Structure formats: structure tokens, C-alpha cells
């Protein structure tokens, strides 16, 4: 055996001790997936603007009873069809003047409105305050959206999970049902249901619920198929974890991005359907305001009183645009690859 020469300990010395320390250091805090998503979302200016807009709209509609200046259904026939007026500010288009036979006339004076009365967005043909009606109408649209989303989550997600997880015959059977439901045009189902049920909020939500869950179920099923082949799921199964626990602990967290993104597309769809049904007259019944009924009323009088049509049209469009763009932003945030190509 050859002698191994002993090297004294003193000869070992770290080179550039200080520098190395810096190189090894992790400069930024490590982010969880959700933190990363949030960071990417807030970097997207368009998404932030939409999120802010939607937050404001949601806040106003939640606080509707406090924010709305008048009762949305209170009729005051003497004050009918007054143009918009904002206090005593003299802004053209917002000063209460109306074009009557080529002359601008103070409509408030003509209606003998008490001094200090003003309607920011004017009144409709029954003297109801348009702004309050729009606030309440938006609230209703958002309620429909929230309920439609809940249905999506309550029916669509479990359906897709079970179908994808069980596979085999169960899956085939469940998929046949999905195929049949999805091949019936959902507009037709919604209209049929609305004819049979009494018009109103519940019926609209039921009608949307019958067809709305299909897309969600499909997406969740496809993802579950991929996820169940993953090692961690296999490990959980080997350890004897129950199916429900695997679903809630492993599958749903990994499905969250798909679910959130799909939800962002369910919302504008639901709002559109409500407005559409109300517009053709089988949606929200008469005294209550909805963006669809407001538009339909506004359209009838648009020749002389265009402001009655403009306001609901703008609000409806803003909500639709903002949810669509926020949905895009969320998709990019959850799946950065999709936007980088």
C-alpha cells in the first residue's frame, strides 16, 4: 500500500469566500404558483384596468340600495322623459336641455320640476330615474352571472371529475349525455325553458344551468384524464387514499387554472343571455330593471331620446369587454406559454 501523503488542514482554504457567498444566494424570494400568477396578472396593464373597472361595477351594484339616488321602480309621471342633468353644472348634454323643434328647451322647467331636482342620466317614459334603474339592472346581470358560475362549479366540475376519474363504461355513458346535451343548441333550450317557466330570475338561471355546465365538464374531464396518470396521484392511490380525498387534495388544486379561466368565459355568456332574453321580452318581467329591458325600452324611443339607449348600451358593453379581456389576462397569467408564441 502506498502511503497517502497527508495534507495539512491549513492548506484548504476557500477562494473568494465573500464572492461565493453572493453567488449562491437566492436574490428574489421564491414564489408559489399562485403568487407567480398574481405577479403576471398585475404586470398586464389591460387586465388590471379591467379588474379595477369590474371591481367598481361590482361594488356599486352590491351597494345599490345606498348608492342609487332614487327608487328604480318609483314612477313619477310628471317627470317623464327628462334628459340627463348633473346638478347645476352647465355641461352640454348634461344640463337638462332638450332639443324641441330645433330649439334647446330646459326640459326640467317645462316639467315644472322643483328647484334642485336632477336626474344624472335622465328619466324614462314613466319618470323613473335611469341611473338607479341601470344600477339595479347591472346588479341583476351580475347576480345571473354569479349564479350561472355557481352552477358551472356545482354541476360541471364534479361531472367532469367523475367522468374522467372513473373512465371506462361510466365515462362513455356520461360522455354520450354530454354529446346529446351539447348538440342541442343552447339558445333553443334556454328559450324553450323560458317559455315553459315563469319569466324571472330563477327561470333564467335554470335555463342557463341546463346547458351551461357542458363546456366546463368537458374541460375538467380532459384535464382529469391527464392528471390521473401523474406519479403523485399514483402514489396517493398506492397509499390507499380515497377517491374523494384525491379529488379534493390533488385534482382540484391542479385543475384550478382551467376552472378559473372557464368561469371568466361563463360570466359574459350568462350576462349576454339574460340581456338577450329580456330584450326579446321573455326575461325579467316588467317593473324590474335589467340591462336587456332597459335597452329594449331605450330602442323604442331612440329617435327622440337617444340617452335612454346609450347608457345601458355602454354599461353592458363595458361589462362584456372587461370580463372578456380579464379572461384573456387570466389565461396568460396561468399559462404564460400561450401568449409568448
Amino acid at each position, binding site marked *: 500500500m502506498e502511503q497517502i501523503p497527508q495534507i495539512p488542514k491549513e492548506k484548504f482554504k476557500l477562494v473568494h469566500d465573500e464572492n461565493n457567498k453572493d453567488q449562491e444566494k437566492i436574490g428574489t424570494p421564491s414564489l408559489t404558483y399562485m403568487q407567480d400568477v398574481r405577479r403576471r396578472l398585475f404586470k398586464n396593464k389591460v387586465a388590471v384596468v379591467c379588474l379595477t373597472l369590474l371591481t367598481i361595477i361590482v361594488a356599486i351594484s352590491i351597494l345599490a340600495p345606498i348608492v342609487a339616488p332614487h327608487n328604480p321602480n318609483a314612477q313619477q309621471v310628471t317627470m317623464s322623459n327628462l334628459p340627463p342633468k348633473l346638478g347645476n353644472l352647465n355641461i352640454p348634454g348634461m344640463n337638462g336641455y332638450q332639443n324641441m323643434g330645433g330649439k334647446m328647451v330646459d326640459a326640467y322647467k317645462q316639467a315644472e320640476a322643483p328647484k334642485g331636482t336632477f336626474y344624472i342620466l335622465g328619466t324614462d317614459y314613466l319618470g323613473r330615474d335611469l341611473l338607479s334603474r341601470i344600477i339595479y339592472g347591472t346588479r341583476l346581470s351580475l347576480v345571473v352571472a354569479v349564479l350561472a358560475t355557481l352552477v358551472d362549479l356545482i354541476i360541471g366540475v364534479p361531472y367532469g371529475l367523475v367522468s374522467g376519474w372513473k373512465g371506462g363504461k361510466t365515462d362513455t355513458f356520461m360522455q354520450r349525455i354530454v*354529446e*346529446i346535451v351539447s*348538440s*342541442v*343548441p343552447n*339558445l*333553443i333550450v334556454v*328559450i*324553450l*325553458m323560458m*317559455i*315553459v317557466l315563469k319569466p324571472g330570475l330563477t327561470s333564467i338561471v335554470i335555463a342557463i344551468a341546463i346547458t351551461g355546465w357542458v363546456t366546463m365538464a368537458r374541460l375538467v374531464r*380532459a384535464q382529469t*384524464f391527464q392528471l390521473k396518470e401523474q406519479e403523485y396521484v399514483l402514489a396517493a392511490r398506492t397509499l390507499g387514499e380515497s377517491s374523494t380525498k384525491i379529488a379534493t387534495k390533488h385534482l382540484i388544486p391542479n385543475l384550478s387554472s382551467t376552472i378559473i379561466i372557464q368561469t371568466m368565459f361563463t360570466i*359574459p355568456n350568462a350576462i*349576454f343571455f339574460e*340581456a*338577450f332574453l329580456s*330584450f*326579446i*321580452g*321573455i326575461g325579467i318581467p316588467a317593473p324590474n330593471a335589467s340591462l336587456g329591458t332597459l*335597452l329594449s325600452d*331605450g*330602442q323604442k324611443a*331612440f*329617435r327622440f331620446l*337617444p340617452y335612454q*339607449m346609450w347608457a345601458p*348600451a355602454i354599461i*353592458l*358593453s363595458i361589462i*362584456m*369587454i372587461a370580463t*372578456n*379581456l380579464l379572461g384573456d389576462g387570466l389565461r396568460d397569467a396561468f399559462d404564460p406559454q400561450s401568449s409568448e*408564441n
Partner: protein
Amino acid sequence: MTKYILKRIFYLFVTLFIIASLTFFLMKLLPGTPFSNQNRMSPDQLKIVKAQYGLDQSVFVQYIRYMGGLLQGNLGTSFQFNNEPVTALIGQRLAPSMQIGAQAMIVGTIGGILLGAVAAIRKNTWADTLATFVSILGLSIPSFVLAVLLQFYLAYKWRIFPVALWDNFQSSILPTLALAAMPLGSVARFMRTEMVDVMSSDYIELAKSKGNSSWGVVVKHALRNSLIPVVTIIGPMAVSVMTGSMVVENIFSIPGIGEQFVKSITTNDYPTIMGLTIFYSFLLIIVYLIVDILYGLIDPRIRLGNGGKE
């Protein structure tokens, strides 16, 4: 492929059968009868009228009769429109709807392809931003909102087009524009994504490096390959155009099927509602079927049958 098509056609009939049955029984559940307003009718007269429409039979007999009629292409008789057969009603009103629908699809698709292509070629420039903005507007603004605004400005204020009329081509322009917005938006978005993908692929690099003009590369290689997936969104597009046509036809007073549908809903005209529901579903299912088959033919990478996905 043949097996797949046969299977799809079988499903088509199953679906139609289900829709027809569902519509029939739902209509029977409806509150109110089409005769409820005629208070002056004596019980005897009411009996005669009911017998004339076969409403005195049991629901089951009515169902069998209706389904039998369907097989022979008979959709029943309208309660409200001068006792006309529903098929005749649809026949009379099909042309305007088809014209507007087809025009909207053509304008939307071509406009969308151009918009999407420009956005992809001039990626991250002002042209891209503008195109994206236009397409998101088209996608988000409901067609009936757009229809109302177009009617107010272009027809009423500036008097470029008739407000509501159905006689010549001019009167079809505004409804077409209102309906075309949605297809335009979705095609443009789809096209942009696809084209950006294609533009960065190897064969485009090769075509460029061979010294082809950039215009030639775009038209010959990029555009053609990006077009394939656009076929898949024709189905949803057709649905949105049909949905839109119901309200748009109402807004512009066009004597089409959509307007008829809305009218028959408000007048409890069961046979017409049933007939139109079945007709609409049939059209949509056929469109979906054609799109699926087309897609399989165009792109051999798509394996049809057996789900094709997993």
C-alpha cells in the same frame, strides 16, 4: 371515415328525436292555450276548434301524430298565422334570414381573416393593437346593442341607410354589419394566434431565406396554413349569427325566421315554436356535422372516430 360519418348521422337523428319529443312535451306543459282570449266562443264552438287542431285527443295520441307528421316533413299548422302550415311559413321567411346570415358570415370571415393576418404580420405594432381592439369589441358587444347603435347613427341621424325596411340590397347592409361583428371578432383572434404560430415555423424561415418576397411568403405559405383551424369555429359562428338574427331581424323589421320565432313565442303559437325549434336545431346540427367532416378531410392529422382526443 365512412364509419365515423354514419355514426354521426345516426347521432343526428337521435338528437333530433330527443329535441322533437322534448319540445312537444314542454309545449304541452305551457300555461295558457292559444284560444284563451276568445271568451266569446261557446263551449261547443271551442270543441269544434279543438277537434280541428286535434287538441281533443290524449297527449300520447297527439305525440304519435306529431312524430308521424315529422317523418313526412309535416310540422303542423300554425295557430296564429292564417292556419298556414308551419313548413310554408318557414319557406316564405327563409330567404331574408338566409341572405343576411350568409352575408354576415362572409363579411365576418373575410374581414376577420384580413384583420387577424394584418395583426399577426405587424405583430406588436399599432396595427396589431388596433386589430386586437376591433376584434375584442366585435366579440364583446352583443349584436342587438350594435344593431340599435347602427340604426340610430347610420340610418336615423346620418340617413345613409334605411331605418327599417326590406326591399333591396341596401336595406340588408345594416343588419349584416350588426351580425358580422361577432364572427369578425372571433375569426380575427383565432387567425392572429394561428398566424403568429405559423410565421415563426421553420418552413416560413426557409421560404424567406430562399429569397421569396415577404408578400409571397405570407400569401402562399402562412395564410394557407393558418386558415385550416379557422374552419373549426364556423359552427359556433353559425350559432351566434342565428342567435343574433332573432333580435336583429326584430330591430330592423325584417320578415325572417328569427322575427317569426320571437313573434310565435309571444303569441303562444305552439306548432310554430315547435317547428322552428326543430328547424333551428336541424340546421345547427348539420352545420356542426359538415364542419367536423370538413376538418377531418382538410387536416389528416386529426384522427376521427374513437374520440380522437385521448
